[in-house]
């Protein structure tokens, strides 16, 4: 009996109307292993996890726990048999505190008629502090998306489970938090808990996991031991082709610097950041790095007029940008891609086509102020093809897309206009390797054509591989700007945290222990 | 030594209390209530809730009572809910008279109204006579409001009793809403092409009903109770057949008298057991203020704004 895998999936299928999300897949999770699940966006990873977590029901096939077939009728049922799920899409009660969100399952199971808030706060604090020092009495609505992601993880960690599913937990996290999470996962593994780990970051998979299973187009492809395979191999199985060049060529080191497209000087918002100077030149891709909560998003949003500034100036293409609202910025040719796609990136209930055209309706407006629906459809179709959005059609609601494909729609929306400068906040969050390469190539093409590109990213390899220069933000100030020659993980981490990299990791180790 | 006993003490105040206080039915009542008050040298006040809500009306009644007036002339929206407040008022020395609707089980001293049954009965006779005692008719109702229900049932009862050839072909609820009345009459006219008359117990529905009747070719006689400027205009134009209108003025004037008398029982030395029984010797249980039939011929005399202009008063605002 102890030989039986903790969890086994047998020829399981699931269809959403005409879309076959999964067809006859299999999967096996052994006791105490960390098992990676890989696949392109829309391969069916989250769908499978949702079925294991009791949120969806399979059309066909079996789920076996400890060798016995089970029906997992609801999330509650899943919890009862020891399955904890960290969702790809953040699902927290915005009006409740962090502590209550973390302890919600416990509160639900509680027999005592009255709440014991002290206990809840203490328990939540304990779980939260293992990951990041987020005050547990804050309302979730007041947290940034990355902090919410951490809360979501902490929430799962409080559950007494034997299978922990992590669906892209690090998509919005920086190195520091990710490392803490890995340490925790390793600790769980030691205690015999099995973990399913979904991620598009190959480095993480190869440093953390024991085995890897690959899905493609809703079908099972292969399962390998990590030692027996390589990142390239996994990518090939996922994408079905070889990816030779992960990042596009950068500007040659001796290239003449272009003219200044966007200059920010002395920008402050009075609370989160102060005295920010930035300059973006034609032809280059400027990266912005930093820890969670450093204020990168706020800086970008303030530049675009999405938040008020208290001091400083922004010059766009030689003209002083006096904007009162984001609409002015868009008109002036400055657009921003939000990091929080669910809250401010996409319209979940609207069609893909309508989402793509939201940023510039004027372009699609024909005579009498009517929308040219053919032009809208053409635009959506071509951008969706370019970005490889897996969908049933451009009329489908965005809510029916997989997480990564939703992100692609959000990017398509930005690309639908022809701006002078695009600021992208975590653009490749949740996007698979193949599509990432495609998006990076697109950004580089745009840069070469004179469009200014600023990329905010928490993924260090992306900053280093894609950007020509990286500005690092620490506690609301620019800690330094690194040129091509200086770009490496250690330097960025050092600037971002203000400490030597080794010290950072030691600190974490202590925290975890 | 008191030359004229029919005078108020300084500060003696009489209040009139109603629900849906913004509608005009009450205005003539209060107007005469006020005139009587002035003749007696009393203060008068018009209070009530603008809403159609018994709970809110009781709140305004209680508030008025908190100021310890000499008497309250009240139109209790529902009879029984007012028992407790009226009794509390009476026990505290405030006289209470009900008008147009009663609270029979309370300790109110008097009740003054026009006779709803007589109104319904007359309306039935008028309609049936005009139709030669033969034909189809329908009624629009406002189920749940007592005086309206009484008028309707009196109307129907009279038809059945005295006019056997008049056939009731439809009852619909219009709930005092002109658009609902409009739709109801249009539908009724479809179902019953020979419909010759429709009766409703209030004026709001009549505006819609008359319009529908007019669009249906004017064969349907619209009969109602109560009037307003629009109804009067339509009566004069022949678009409405007629209306039974309570004598609101007398309701107010006599209402005041009844209150005043109830407040001053010492004026008489009753020749009965009232004193020994601790009862109010001035108790007049019921007064009928009568009603008028409004037709083309007399409609001109019922315009409220013309009356106000002629009298030079500000109506309920004083």
């Amino acid at each position, binding site marked *: 009996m102890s030989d039986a895998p903790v969890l086994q999936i047998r020829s399981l299928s699931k269809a959403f109307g005409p879309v076959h999300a999964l067809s006859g897949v299999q999967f096996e999770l052994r006791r105490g292993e960390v098992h990676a699940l890989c696949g392109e966006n829309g391969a069916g990873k989250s769908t499978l996890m949702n079925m294991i977590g009791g949120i969806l029901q399979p059309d066909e096939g079996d789920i076996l726990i400890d060798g016995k077939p089970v029906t997992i009728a609801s999330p509650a049922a899943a919890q009862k048999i020891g399955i904890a799920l960290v969702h790809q899409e953040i699902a927290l009660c915005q009006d409740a505190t962090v502590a209550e969100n973390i302890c919600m399952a416990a509160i639900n199971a509680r027999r005592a008629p009255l709440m014991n808030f002290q206990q809840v706060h203490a328990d939540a604090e304990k779980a939260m502090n293992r990951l990041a020092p987020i005050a547990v009495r804050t309302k979730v609505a007041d947290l940034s998306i990355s902090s919410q992601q951490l809360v979501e993880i902490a929430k799962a960690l409080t559950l007494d489970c034997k299978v922990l599913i992590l669906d892209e937990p690090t998509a919005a996290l920086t190195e520091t938090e990710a490392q803490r999470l890995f340490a925790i996962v390793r600790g769980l593994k030691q205690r015999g808990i099995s973990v399913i780990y979904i991620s598009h970051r190959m480095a993480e998979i190869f440093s953390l996991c024991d085995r890897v299973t690959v899905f493609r187009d809703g079908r099972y492809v292969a399962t390998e031991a990590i030692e027996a395979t390589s990142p390239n191999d996994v990518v090939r199985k996922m994408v079905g082709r070889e990816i030779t060049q992960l990042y596009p060529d950068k500007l040659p080191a001796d290239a003449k610097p272009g003219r200044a497209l966007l200059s920010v000087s002395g920008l402050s918002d009075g609370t989160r950041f102060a005295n920010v100077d930035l300059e973006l030149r034609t032809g280059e891709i400027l990266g912005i790095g930093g820890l969670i909560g450093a204020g990168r998003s706020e800086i970008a949003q303030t530049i675009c007029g*999405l938040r008020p500034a208290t001091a400083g100036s922004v010059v766009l293409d030689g003209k002083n940008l006096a904007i009162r609202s*984001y*609409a002015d*910025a*868009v*008109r002036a040719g400055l*657009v*921003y891609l*939000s990091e929080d796609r669910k*809250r*401010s*990136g*996409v*319209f*979940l*209930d*609207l069609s893909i086509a*309508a989402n793509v055209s*939201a*940023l510039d*309706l004027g372009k*699609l*407006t024909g005579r009498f*102020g*009517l*929308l040219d629906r053919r032009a809208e459809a053409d635009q959506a179709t071509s951008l969706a093809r370019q970005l490889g959005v897996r969908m049933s059609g451009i009329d489908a609601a965005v809510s029916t897309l997989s997480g990564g494909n939703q992100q692609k729609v959000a990017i398509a929306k930005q690309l639908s206009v022809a701006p002078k400068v695009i600021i992208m906040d975590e653009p490749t969050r949740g996007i698979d390797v193949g599509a990432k390469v495609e998006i990076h190539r697109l950004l580089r093409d745009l840069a070469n054509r004179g469009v200014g590109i600023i990329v905010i990213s928490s993924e260090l390899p992306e900053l280093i591989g894609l950007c020509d220069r990286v500005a690092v933000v620490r506690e609301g100030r620019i800690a330094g700007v690194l040129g091509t020659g200086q770009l490496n993980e250690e330097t960025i981490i050092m600037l971002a945290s203000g400490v030597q990299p080794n010290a950072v990791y030691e600190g974490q180790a202590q925290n975890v222990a | 030594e008191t030359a004229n006993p029919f005078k108020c003490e300084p500060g003696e105040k009489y209040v009139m209390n109603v629900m849906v206080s*913004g*509608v*005009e039915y009450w*205005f003539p009542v209060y107007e005469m209530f006020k005139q009587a008050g002035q003749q007696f040298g009393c203060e008068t006040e018009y209070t009530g809730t603008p809403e159609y809500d018994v709970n809110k009306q009781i709140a305004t009644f209680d508030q008025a009572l908190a100021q310890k007036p000499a008497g309250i002339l009240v139109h209790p929206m529902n009879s029984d809910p007012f028992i407790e407040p009226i009794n509390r008022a009476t026990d505290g020395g405030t006289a209470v008279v009900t008008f147009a609707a009663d609270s029979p089980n309370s300790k109110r001293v008097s009740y003054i109204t026009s006779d709803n049954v007589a109104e319904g009965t007359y309306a039935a006779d008028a309609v049936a006579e005009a139709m030669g005692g033969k034909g189809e008719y329908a009624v629009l*109702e406002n*189920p749940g409001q007592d005086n309206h229900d009484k008028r309707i049932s009196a109307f129907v009862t009279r038809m059945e009793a005295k006019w056997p050839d008049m056939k009731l*072909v*439809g*009852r*619909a*609820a219009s709930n*005092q*809403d*002109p*658009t609902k009345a*409009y*739709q109801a009459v*249009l*539908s*009724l*006219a*479809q*179902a019953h092409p020979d419909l010759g008359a429709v009766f409703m117990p209030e004026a*709001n529905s009549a*505006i819609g009903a008359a*319009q529908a009747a007019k*669009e249906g070719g004017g064969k349907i006689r619209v009969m109602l109770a109560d009037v*307003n*400027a*629009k109804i009067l*205009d339509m009566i004069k*134009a022949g678009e409405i057949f007629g209306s039974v209108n309570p004598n609101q003025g007398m309701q107010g004037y006599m209402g005041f008298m009844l209150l005043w008398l109830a407040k001053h029982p010492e004026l008489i030395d009753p020749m009965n057991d009232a004193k020994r029984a601790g009862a109010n010797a001035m108790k007049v249980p019921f007064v009928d203020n009568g009603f008028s039939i409004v037709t083309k011929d007399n409609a001109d005399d019922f315009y*409220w*704004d013309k009356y106000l202009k002629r009298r030079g008063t500000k109506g309920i605002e004083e």
Partner: protein
Amino acid sequence: MHAEIKVADASRRASFARFASMREAGLIVIILALCIAMSLASPHFLTWGNFRAMLMSFSIEGIVVVGMTILLIVGGIDLSVGSVVCFSMVVSGALFLAGLDPWTASLIGIAVSALIGAVMGFFVTVVGLNHFITSLAAMVIVRGLCLVITKGTPLSLFTLPPEFKAIGQGNLQGVPYVIIIFVVVVAIFDFLLRRATAFRKVFYTGSNEKAAQFSGIKTNQVKFWVTVLCATLSGFAGVIYMARFGAATPTFGAGMELNVIAAAVIGGASLKGGSGTIFGAILGMALLSVVTSSLILLDISVYWQDMIKGCILLAAVSADHFLHRKKS
């Protein structure tokens, strides 16, 4: 030849599929079913007179439904529609009685209605109150204004010139102008809501206000103008009511808001914003109207009418829900 049949068949099937996938299909089926049942039960049901009566009974309110639906889509709500309808009647009527010609008076009536919408829009967008509470206050205030202006008595507008009354009472070759106006307004706004760029922004704002802001849409402007539009359409409806009834009653339209919102919700609008169609809302209105007049036609006792009406409503909405859910 065989192939041809297949093609025809396929195209028929395709157009059926398109019909079935419409949000409104369920409602249409239910209303038709009710109509068939009714025409079996009453010989008077399937007559032009009866349909005309039903149409007349909801056409003017239907104009208010149009505004409400758009407002619901943007995530708002307007409880003041009944009061504004009344206010527009009262203002126009009073101005007419004061000597203005009825057309100018009506225009002013509609304009002040729009102004009320603008004030509500101000409180919603600038002050930051929600639509519910703002329009609730407006409902009370505007009703109060009606009382102030009329002093509680209906204005009799008997002297309105016939060419003005014709709007509400006349007809073009048997089709009342009211119905024509209603159909035109519905058609225009249904079309605009599906096709016009400006109205697309209404959907964006209602679906996800923050995402709309992050797409450069001035959501406050959108909400403001939709609020104004809803009040303006209410004002327009008020003027038509005035022409129909030749009167301006200060209590007119009380309780209308619930009926109008119910129609929109039955027709697929969500109180949470982001969805709804005008065609659907009008079908919702039609459903309510068919039920009401059926009960009168069948001569159901007034005591039972409410109960039966509510049950039919519940059954219809449940059926629609199932038809719609099976589809998706």
